[in-house]
């Protein structure tokens, strides 16, 4: 954990300075590679180049699954296609259009992102505090939540958090999906904390020094000079984390939260768990997640390219 962090930051700096001139041929590409790796290490994930035609492959897969299932289906039972048409509203919105099923995945992702962002920015700013205990403490919290598996965090919150909070005069119930929101916002918080810290540290120290020489105090420097410059850099990784979060929300089906995977399993169950329905339903499930995530991932990459030129 310690090694991961310090190495990431220090390498980044040496790569840019001392060795630059020595090895002209290989260095520029290698440095680009390295800095990309450092960014990815900070964000704990990878970014890829996406193209619209990739989506076509997804649809082909779907057609293929539907086709094979169709051929296998016994004639007297409802065909896989009809079964999917019958159940897809249920998987997408839950019974009677109540906001469950896939829409609950999105709701959870929104709230977890909201809380995760607020907490993450606060934690990230604490990581660049001048006070050593604050810095160390927030660093430990960040590393702890970054390096724990999401599922373990989710279980912890789901099982150990009370199902209601008694404030004496009023009892606030906490439904499972809200606990899931908290469970997901923790790793998001930790990773965004690193994004903030990384973005601030990536600014050349000249910015701090010139602000200081203009008699800005630390708070003014941070809010008026440093953070506005970091803001753009933080948006693409922020969106990227949103994608990862959204793709993690199916995990809470393990604890029975009524999201898309839970409902898919229920729908299959209601159809008697017929094996030929499995491919169609699971590919449908993958597909709705893909359709939601893919454009956002693309957008994040576009933004990154756009900002990369200006910065």
């Amino acid at each position: 954990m310690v090694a991961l962090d310090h190495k990431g930051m220090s390498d980044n700096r040496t790569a840019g300075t001392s060795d630059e001139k020595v090895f002209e041929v290989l260095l520029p590409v290698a440095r680009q590679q390295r800095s990309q790796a450092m960014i990815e290490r900070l964000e704990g994930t990878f970014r890829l180049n996406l193209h619209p035609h990739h989506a076509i492959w997804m649809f082909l897969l779907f057609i293929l699954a539907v086709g094979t299932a169709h051929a296998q289906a016994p004639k007297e039972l409802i065909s896989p296609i009809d079964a999917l048409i019958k159940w897809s509203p249920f998987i997408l919105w839950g019974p009677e259009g109540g906001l469950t099923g896939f829409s609950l995945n999105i709701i959870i992702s929104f709230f977890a992102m909201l809380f995760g962002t607020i907490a993450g920015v606060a934690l990230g700013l604490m990581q660049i505090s001048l006070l050593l205990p604050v810095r160390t403490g927030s660093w430990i919290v960040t590393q702890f939540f970054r390096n724990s598996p999401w599922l373990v965090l989710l279980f912890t919150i789901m099982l150990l958090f009370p199902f209601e909070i008694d404030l004496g005069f009023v009892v606030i119930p906490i439904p499972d999906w809200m606990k899931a929101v908290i469970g997901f916002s923790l790793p998001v918080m930790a990773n965004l904390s690193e994004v903030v810290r990384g973005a601030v540290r990536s600014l050349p120290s000249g910015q701090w020094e010139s602000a200081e020489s203009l008699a800005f105090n630390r708070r003014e420097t941070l809010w008026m000079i440093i953070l506005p410059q970091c803001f753009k850099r933080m948006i693409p990784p922020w969106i990227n984390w949103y994608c990862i979060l959204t793709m993690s929300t199916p995990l809470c089906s393990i604890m029975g939260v009524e999201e898309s995977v839970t409902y898919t399993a229920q729908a299959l169950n209601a159809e008697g768990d017929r094996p030929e329905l499995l491919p169609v339903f699971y590919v449908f499930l993958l597909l709705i997640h893909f359709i939601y995530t893919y454009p956002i991932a693309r957008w994040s990459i576009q933004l990154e390219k756009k900002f990369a030129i200006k910065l």
Partner: protein
Amino acid sequence: MASPSQSGNGSGTNWTPDQPMVSIKDVHKSFGDLEVLKGVSLDVMKGECICIIGPSGSGKSTLIRCVNALNDIQQGSILVEGLEVNDPNLDKLELRKKVGMVFQQYNLFPHKTAIENIMMAPITVLKQDKDEVAEHANSLIKKVRLEGKENSYPGELSGGQQQRVAIARSLAMSPDVMLFDEVTAALDPETVKEVLNTIQELAEEGMTCILVTHEMGFAREVANHIYFTDFGLIVEHGAPATFFDDAKDPRTKEFLSQIL
């Protein structure tokens, strides 16, 4: 050291030392629609050192890259010790044993030390005995005056030092002809000299050299013959004295007046 006479063995050609070692005849080369070489001919005898000069983009690099088959040609013939380079069935290994090349950007292997860079090819490509190769490599290190730098990585060497390692690396294959493509162009002015000295010593020892260079003083001193290229053609050539002092072609004159 590489003795030029140990060459041509077993390649089944009937080249004799009185014929040109490299013979380029009417070479045409295009990249797509762009015709870069439009019929170039020149001969290099054994032990000769020739320089090719000319404006940027005139096809100098392309020409010498064709000599060791890094580029293929569309028309014409290149004979190296009687070995036809423009032959689809060319044994490239045979050619590259004869022809060494040094690049402008050194192109050393950054994950190997200086001595390893020199030893790698003879061991992997020629399958020579490791101890013999090591001995040869040490003598080459001395030759290019890099004693003490054997175990440095390319990243730890200056440009001039790297370029001398690159020269030694080529010499380790015991070539009969050496190609140098603007080998000093990426160097600081102070380090240019050490590399040029190494090349000059080579030439004086009788190595056949084809050089592309912008160092006119060096060309005048070292070359037996100067070729001036422009737009893919050899415009003028001659011995250094006549070439530099008594150029006939207006393009040569203009080029020389700009560069001298």
